[in-house]
């Protein structure tokens, strides 16, 4: 297991370097002079040159690359062109909100989706199966912003169970924070419920027809043990795959949800940076997203090592 973890970490490093390089290239090949874009047509040549120097754009390209990589690896992305605060300070201030939203929706997906999928597989083509099908259809066919607006109207505006507008940075009041997290997490979680119901249902159907489940029954194991220990343990493998894949999607999807629910987070930061053409901020955010996705992939690989003994030996 230790060897396996070390190997995965070793593989993650080149991925991260490649992603950083890609971000560097992407920002440079976007047509137009960033300084001109930021300052507008009326800017004096002097001001333009000054800004270019501040952004490090006057250096030779290889030097820019070295500087960029050095900064990225030390978590320093320079200062925001708009607020003049360090990019990392702004990012770190809102990162917990995005992370808690992502993790909460993943938890909702797992808590509802997995049992629903198992239940559906056991009652194939009967009521549980139909309920599961409807839930996953609804979860997958509503775009996040549509279901978000609907939820706001029903639960916040009409029923007044939850705040319409998040109170903003209320780190110190856990109750308020949970209340403002509930609807956005439910909104994103619905998609996760849908995916997890589907993969669990089909995985369970397959597992329960496997020879090893027949063996477990032949040993006289009780039904619940057969289903969970022998059937479900094997379904964890496709479940980890789906969580790994859609966690990345979830981090991306949180942009829309954060805007609909007016929540602080990376999503709002990105939209603000786009509006104001804050290049350094965008560059920093791209790296942070890339880093998060590399981390998700790493965690997925480690989870495989836990749920599938065949992985460790390869």
């Amino acid at each position, binding site marked *: 297991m230790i060897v396996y973890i070390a190997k995965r970490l070793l593989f993650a490093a080149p991925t991260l370097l490649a992603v950083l390089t890609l971000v560097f290239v992407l920002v440079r090949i976007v047509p137009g002079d960033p300084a001109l874009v930021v300052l507008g047509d009326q800017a004096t040549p002097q001001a333009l040159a000054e800004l270019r120097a501040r952004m490090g754009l006057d250096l030779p390209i290889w030097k820019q690359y070295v500087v960029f990589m050095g900064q990225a690896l030390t978590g320093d992305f320079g200062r925001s062109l708009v607020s003049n605060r360090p990019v990392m300070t702004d990012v770190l201030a809102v990162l917990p909100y995005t992370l808690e939203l992502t993790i909460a929706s993943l938890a909702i997906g797992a808590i509802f989706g997995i049992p629903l999928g198992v239940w559906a597989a056991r009652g194939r083509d009967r009521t549980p199966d139909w309920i599961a099908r409807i839930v996953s259809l609804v979860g997958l066919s509503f775009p996040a912003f549509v279901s978000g607006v609907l939820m706001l109207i029903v639960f916040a505006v009409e029923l007044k169970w939850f705040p319409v507008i998040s109170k903003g940075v209320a780190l110190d009041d856990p109750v308020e924070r949970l209340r403002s997290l509930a609807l956005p997490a439910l909104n994103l979680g619905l998609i996760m419920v849908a995916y997890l119901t589907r993969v669990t249902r089909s995985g369970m159907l397959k597992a329960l027809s496997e020879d090893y489940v027949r063996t477990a029954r*032949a040993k006289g194991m*009780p039904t619940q043990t057969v289903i969970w220990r*022998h059937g479900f343990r*094997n379904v964890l*493998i496709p479940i980890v795959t789906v969580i790994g894949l859609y966690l990345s999607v979830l981090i991306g999807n949180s942009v829309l949800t954060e805007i609909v629910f007016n929540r602080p987070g990376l999503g709002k930061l990105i939209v603000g940076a786009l509006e104001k053409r804050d290049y350094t901020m965008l560059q920093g955010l791209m790296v942070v997203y890339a880093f998060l996705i590399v981390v998700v992939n790493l965690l997925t690989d480690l989870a495989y090592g836990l749920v599938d003994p065949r992985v460790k*030996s390869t």
Partner: protein
Amino acid sequence: MSAVSKASDAAAALRVEGLTTSLKIDGVWRDAVRDVSFALAPGETLALVGESGCGKSLTAMTVMGLLPKGVGRLSAGRIVIDGVETSTLAERDFGKVRGDSIGMIFQEPMTSLNPVLPVGFQIAEPLMQHRGLSRRQAMERARELMELVRIPAAAERLKSYPHQFSGGMRQRVMIALAIACSPKVLIADEPTTALDVTVQAQVLDLLGVLQRERGLGVLLITHNLGVVATNAQRVMVMYGGDVVESADVGDFFAKPLHPYSRALLAAMPRVDRPTSDLAPIPGQVPTLAELPDGCRFQSRCPLREEACAVRPPLTPVEGGRRHVRCVVLARELAGDLPREGTA
């Protein structure tokens, strides 16, 4: 009702009477196994032979109470395992017998073990379930069982996973977990069909040793008559869900009676005969829906006559030493008690 057994009722490890299994096919329940009766004494091996699709596995799954719900059912008959009548038990109570007084091993060693659980734990599971052993005690017993089935380095391999074992070793693990609770009966459904020839011999040898040492009654399902000749004391031939002949192995190989038994033996490769003499059985096993009502073998039978349209009974012949399900033979052999010289 036939009782082709030397086992008295009380001593039988497994007794099956008039077992009839029906399958739901396209919404219609059809009898896939009809009126099978036998008794298995401790320490005895009864071979169940026949081409594939003739109902051998279905018979085994019925005895184990493992018919797929809604697709298969025991529609008649009694099953008594080690003195407990299981055919009337609720699923919960049947679960207490399964894996305890009766164990089963399957044809597919590669897929019959759970890939995500250590083999030692898979062997230990029935011990914790049926015998109330603690995990530690059960694992210790699992190690002994792995040694018993001659898995090398058992102690180190207790925590290994199935993918780290070869097919032959996995089948040994299957045997270990099937006999963990010292059952009276072991059903082995084509236990060596998927293995290499040399490994086949080793696994059969192991089964033989365990059976002698532990007085295990073995129902050995196979389509390999060579395996029957070397491993079984009695043989039951099935065709289309019917038992068509049952006899002691010696009598059977000396002189198979039923036309289907003869055809099976004629199709079997033997060292004392050139392979060009092999006579494949013409035609094929009809599907359940196509099976004729009377004698199920009539469509492929050289002795066929009008009377075959009515289902023949399993008739005792040769003074009750053996049984055969064929009207033509029953008539010919009737009163033929002084047997013609056997080879």
